[in-house]
């Protein structure tokens, strides 16, 4: 059986007054049935735009998916009619976002917001949909769900709103859940509640999850496989244990060294990555990480490196053979 979702050479750009912003530059990856894939990267690396592109949610203008294919169940989501994508969106592929307040309609009771998609996609009548909505709220552990179904979003806390979002997303038993930084706005104890919840529900329902985040800790606990993005490109892809134990791209190595961590002896200094990500309008012609890289050689400037296999299921976009142990001593100091 092939992968559930296959992204091929996806390219998304924003056409602004200042120029073309190359947000996503030809990314390709696969998602298998039931697996959790993590996509990590820093602000502006294209991780969210890449995910929004999957469901054709890029605001246009100024955004446009300029190339690639997104194969889901044998069909190319980029080629089908808008009405077809509407049948898939929220039904077979659902999405939750970072900010649960702006993603919920403040003027509509939350029960109504959930039952709406049940009536639309699953053709339930009002009564059935309402009963199902209560059931869903119970599933995401909203206390006394039956009493709270007519409450408005403002009557819920941030963590509870995110639960409501998850209930909505799961209402149609999706095959894929795309979670775009769903815990970033939440406190750490609430984040623990939400990640625990998503993990349990994933096992119950058997859906695949794409978890997008900048937090290397969250990814470590939740995912099976991880993609690291930098400047709109995939720079590394590996099974989760492999990525943390044996990172093979200079950016991943730097990123892991930058995080202060609770599980290890405190280092005197953090290994920071000097400099800043490149300008996405005036995009570099060579490797986008060149300016900040400690392993760079002249050949890196020739063309952006392609992903190449460096181990089983492990790919890195770097022409230099690097690993954390070959880190130049100047970087560690």
């Amino acid at each position: 059986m092939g992968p559930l979702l296959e992204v091929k050479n996806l390219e998304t750009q924003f056409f602004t007054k200042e120029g073309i912003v190359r947000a996503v530059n030809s990314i390709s990856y696969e998602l298998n049935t039931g697996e959790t894939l993590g996509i990590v990267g820093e602000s502006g690396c294209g991780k969210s735009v890449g995910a929004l592109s999957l469901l054709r949610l890029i605001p246009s203008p100024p955004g446009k998916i300029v190339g690639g294919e997104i194969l889901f169940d044998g069909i190319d989501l980029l080629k089908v009619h808008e009405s077809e994508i509407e049948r898939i969106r929220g039904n077979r592929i659902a999405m939750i976002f970072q900010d649960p307040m702006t993603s919920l309609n403040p003027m509509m009771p939350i029960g109504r917001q959930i039952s709406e998609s049940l009536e639309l996609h699953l053709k339930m009548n009002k009564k059935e949909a309402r009963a199902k909505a209560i059931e869903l709220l119970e599933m995401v552990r909203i206390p006394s769900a039956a009493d709270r179904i007519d409450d408005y979003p403002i009557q819920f806390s941030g963590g509870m709103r995110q639960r409501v979002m998850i209930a909505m997303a799961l209402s149609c038993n999706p095959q894929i859940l795309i979670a775009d930084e769903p815990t970033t706005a939440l406190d750490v104890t609430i984040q623990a509640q939400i990640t625990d919840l998503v993990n349990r529900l994933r096992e119950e329902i058997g859906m695949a999850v794409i978890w997008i985040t900048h937090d290397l800790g969250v990814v470590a606990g939740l995912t099976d496989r991880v993609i690291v993005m930098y400047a709109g490109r995939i720079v590394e892809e590996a099974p989760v244990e492999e990525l943390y134990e044996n990172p093979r791209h200079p950016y991943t190595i730097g990123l892991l060294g930058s995080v202060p961590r609770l599980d290890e002896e405190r280092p005197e200094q953090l290994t920071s990555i000097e400099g800043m990500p490149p300008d996405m309008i005036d995009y570099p012609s060579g490797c986008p990480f060149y300016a900040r890289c400690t392993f760079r050689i002249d050949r890196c400037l020739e063309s952006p490196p392609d992903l190449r296999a460096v181990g089983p299921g492990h790919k890195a976009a770097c022409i230099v053979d690097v690993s954390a142990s070959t880190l130049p001593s100047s970087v560690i100091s």
Partner: protein
Amino acid sequence: MEAKRNGNDTDEVLLSVNNLKVHFPINRGIIFPRHVGDIKAVDGVSFDVKRGETLGLVGESGCGKSTTGRAIVRLEQPTAGTVEFQGIEMTTLEGESLRKTRRRIQMIFQDPYASLNPRLRVIDIVGDPLKVHNISSDKALTNQVRELLNIVGLNPNFITRYPHEFSGGQRQRIGIARALALRPDFIVFDEPVSALDVSIQAQIINLLENLQSEFRLTYLFIAHDLAVVRHISDRVAVMYLGKLAELTDRERLYKTPLHPYTQALLSAVPIPNPIAERERFKNRVILEGDVPSPDNPPKGCNFCTRCPAKTRVMNEKQIDCSQVEPEFRQAEPGHWVACHLYD
């Protein structure tokens, strides 16, 4: 205990906060506003900061950590309590004496986009404190600002640029340069790296540590990220719903936390190690529910509504946490905790 990094050999108390309270009144009615209650943002907080150390102050949103920092630099007027800075009582200072003391205490904010005036050039932003405090002549000003930019790792030729020409990390550096301009003794950081990406965050943390040892600065470092606080602090205070739950040196807080809240908080932090993190995931203490509202905090211990140790306290100590408030006291020398388990 390990040697202090920052030459803090004296144990001299630089800042002493005693029973600090900041309450915000809730008023109802437009024409005849009535005082109907208070949001008890900070409700009786006491701690000392020693010269040369970094005291970390952690807690979740709304726990009052930022308000505590703002009250220390008098951006909020405390409702009660004292803040003593080298023997000077800060809460009642006014006019010229407040201005003079403030030179020695600076604050750095979370949002590097909102804390710099977009219409001013870098030279005006960083040089303004020098002008306000009549420290510099025009000629010397330019040189001083260039030197400050150099210290924080920015190109000194950027002095005529505007904030929008800089990235988030660079703006935070400008804010740091501005804070350093008056050669302060003490800096309050309010979530200085929370808005930054991890690779940039590491640059700023390293910079802050270098500046501290170079200029013998004392820091109060307010943040919600427990790993960042562990990295930068000598001692750490944990705050919950306007009160301190625990305060001790870094090693003890992270290795042997006493307060059930600190324990839950530490267990909730995901760590970047897949194998260990899956183990932690299974054993994680998941706190039920949300933080109660500070306008109506629970009776007794303010953590009792979510505390996993509540029944244990009842069984072992015969104390009802929802009735009796625990005292913030030393469970062992240098380790303060507010929990009946250690009564």
